[in-house]
């Protein structure tokens, strides 16, 4: 029996048995992951180990390898942590296990999640299933590629500023970055602590809602997680409410014409449903690049300080080039004499970015924009440009800086056959509206995944 292309929701409604589904995907991983390299070496689980109970009934998921697990090694795709086994599970892992999820394995990322292409993994790049010479995006590239190629029915990624939405867009899958504080960070290897947010990467909006229900909620182990009621989002997707959807020219600048066409198509679809489109003015997203580059580097330099070589086996020379660059820049912006000019100023601009969204949401319910300025780039391109990731993440960084929820869903394919993503950004903790609009768009845009599955069948 083939479970390929089946969403979690449909597998559940048909009463698919956990270990059968697990074996099915495990076989696909063994067959196709040599080409795609979505999983990290030594990170594949070979035994089904889950209760076939709970809302997820034993269904298998892939986990980004910066989420610590007690049963599988966790490396964050860095040689520094090669062979490291955490003595404890991340809160999202415990939550998913309690809900009955099983885990296929740990997926590849740019080492420490530093990147937007998954090329910066110390264990080699992941390929985009649509074109193996292209990157899947990053840093949750392994998770997105695994779902796109049907190696896992769904996955968990993490986003700091685009790391869920960008690979989702480039791999033709759904990626939801929840509100900062909505999902516990306990057990996520810290990158940019004031930005990091785990979230689902799935085939459908409904699955994203379903997984969010499981992983969301306040965690006594994460002081930044918030006590906001967790909704039954998967049951709230169908709504007749007419909303105001904002769009801003600032997000259309320098965007590839093919992507713009898909975005306009999405805007028409929403208008046809009776929603009101409203043009708004937003701060240029380029400011988010500077803010991100300073604040995230500062946090990186701090968060990586523990990997000195005294513990965890490898010493600091084992850090990759990208990590070293970020540590140096981060240490610089925090140094006395520079901290005011860089760190503190960036923190102020970040506040302005958040205020900018707050103001926009006085007039509109969600904001629609392209997820990325271009489609998936070639393997090797990232090396050719300084701050490649920041340029690619320009449209996802503002929402990450503001900590608001945002989702990317597939909006079509380019002429070259590469997926295009469109994103919806919402108010703090208003995942409900974001998911509802995304669900409607998903029906209208009817992204077809059949062709890609045929490629790996």
């Amino acid at each position: 029996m083939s479970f390929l292309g089946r969403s979690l929701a449909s597998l559940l409604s048909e009463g698919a048995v956990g270990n059968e589904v697990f074996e099915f995907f495990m076989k696909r991983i063994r067959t196709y992951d040599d080409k795609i390299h979505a999983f990290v070496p030594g990170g594949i689980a070979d035994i089904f180990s889950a209760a076939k109970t709970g809302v997820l009934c034993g269904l298998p998921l892939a986990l980004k390898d910066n989420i610590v697990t007690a049963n599988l090694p966790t490396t964050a795709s860095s040689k520094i942590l090669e062979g490291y086994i955490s003595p404890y599970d991340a809160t999202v892992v415990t939550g998913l296990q309690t809900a009955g999820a099983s885990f296929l394995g740990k997926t590849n990322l740019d080492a420490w999640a530093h990147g937007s292409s998954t090329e910066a993994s110390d264990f080699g790049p992941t390929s985009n299933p649509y074109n193996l010479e292209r990157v899947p995006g990053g840093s949750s590239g392994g998770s997105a590629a695994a779902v796109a190629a049907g190696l896992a029915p769904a996955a968990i990624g993490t986003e700091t500023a685009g790391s869920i939405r960008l690979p989702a867009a480039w791999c033709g899958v759904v990626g939801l970055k929840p509100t900062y504080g909505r999902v516990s960070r306990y057990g996520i290897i810290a990158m940019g602590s004031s930005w990091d947010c785990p979230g689902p990467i799935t085939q459908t909006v409904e699955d994203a809602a379903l997984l969010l229900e499981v992983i969301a909620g306040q965690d006594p182990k994460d002081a930044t997680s918030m006590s906001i009621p967790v909704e039954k989002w998967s049951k709230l997707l169908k709504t007749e409410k007419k909303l105001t959807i904002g769009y801003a020219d600032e997000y259309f600048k320098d965007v590839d014409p093919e992507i713009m066409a898909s975005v306009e198509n999405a805007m028409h679809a929403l208008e046809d449903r009776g929603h009101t489109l409203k043009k708004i003015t937003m701060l240029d997203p380029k400011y988010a690049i500077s803010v991100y580059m300073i604040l995230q580097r500062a946090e990186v330099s701090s968060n990586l300080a523990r990997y000195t070589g005294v513990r965890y086996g490898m010493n600091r020379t084992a850090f990759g080039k990208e990590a070293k660059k970020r540590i140096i820049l981060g240490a610089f912006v925090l140094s006395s004499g520079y901290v005011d000019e860089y760190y503190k100023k960036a923190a102020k601009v970040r506040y302005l970015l958040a205020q900018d969204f707050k103001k926009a949401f006085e007039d509109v319910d969600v904001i629609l924009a392209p997820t990325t300025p271009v489609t998936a780039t070639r393997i090797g391109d990232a090396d050719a440009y300084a701050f490649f990731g920041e340029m690619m993440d320009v449209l996802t960084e503002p929402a990450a800086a503001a900590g608001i929820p945002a989702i990317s869903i597939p909006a079509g394919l380019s002429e070259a056959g590469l997926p295009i993503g469109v994103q919806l950004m919402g108010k703090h903790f208003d995942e409900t509206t974001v998911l509802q609009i995304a669900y409607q768009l998903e029906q209208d845009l009817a992204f077809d995944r059949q062709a890609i599955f045929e490629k790996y069948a």
Partner: protein
Amino acid sequence: MHDYVPVIGLEIHVQLGTKSKMFSRCSADCFGKEPNSVVCPVSLGLPGALPVPNKKAIQWAILIGMALNCKINTVSKFDRKHYFYPDLPKGYQISQYDEPFSYDGSYDLLRKDGSTKKIRIKRVHLEEDTGKLIHDGNDTLVDFNRTGVPLVEIVTEPDFDNSDDVKQFLEELQVIVRYLKVSDADMEKGSMRLEPNISVRKPGQVEIPNYKVEIKNINSFRFVKAAIDYEIKRHIELLGNREVPIQETRGYQEQKGITVSQRVKETAEDYRYFPEPDIPPFEFTQDFIHDIRKSMPELPNKKIARFQSMGVSPHNAYILTRDRSVADFYEEAAQRFPDQSAKIAMLIVQKSVPINQGIEEFCLRAVKILLPIETDLIILSQTIRDVIREHEEPVQSYKNGKESVLMFLVGQVMKAMQGKADAKTVKEELLKELKRPISSTSYN
């Protein structure tokens, strides 16, 4: 040659006696435990682990600030302080930088000669303790048990100019911390650590000298004084030879009574502070602050003043208030002997009557000294016989060997005598009576 005035400031660390650590729920009771047995992912700084602040520790840190008359920051936060050291598992210490819980306090030091000296308190903040390095031959081992234990740092302004004041201040600070019941403040166990910084200047010079020497590894008040005196002498000698003492950290060697250079600070260290992103900033409500203030006990200096107003001598008031339980004992005893407060104080201070036998025994003994009473032996002997007759059961159990009953019977006799009897005589007469054969006491 002694034409210099010392300038001394203090940094004091006090480990709080909370049940769990500062940012994790693992036990903070780690003294003397097997190395690395009192740890958890958070205190080990494992990948993915996050700090969650201990509310009790925050309340206690603020309480210490209040006890030192500090202003309380209603908006505060934790910061990351970065430096590399193997006993610091995250590569940074969670501490407080520019918004400590409390700041700008002061303490009035009442010297023995009756003069007072105001010591300004710069700040009182909360941080996490580090681990411990154990040097074993050529190996250095790390014990993370202490990592993450809540640690309060108290910083004074450099207001001291002699080691006697420093010693007295530290002794009194220890008493205060113990009054607050937030720490055992035991220097042997390292739950109170003292780091004086010292320099000297010319009399009349207002500016702080352009160097200072910090001393570590001091584990008694006596050694603080000795180390400071040693340093002052050393600085004056150096300056006398037209040398400026080096800005450095020195360690005190108690066996030799000297300090030796540990680390020379050539440049100011750059700790790259920034707000701890894992812990949202605090906005304390007035209620929160008020509740902490309400839990403040009467502090030693206030108690001294009150005891003096009860007629106790300054010296005795000071001694009585060094330990909160002694002060409480004194108050209870003093209540039983109105108008005798000063004498009761004397009995306790001079240890004429021990206080470790309980308040009743203390009072019995005290009364003999304070209120010698003429006892009518005829009435007493009749009363004793009455009491024995009315308390058959206790008398029987006394005779069966339960000697503790004696005090009860003494009490009953005293009660029947309406206090008009000397307790010692009562006891002696009662014993005589109890030793008689039963038959002779039963008559009608």
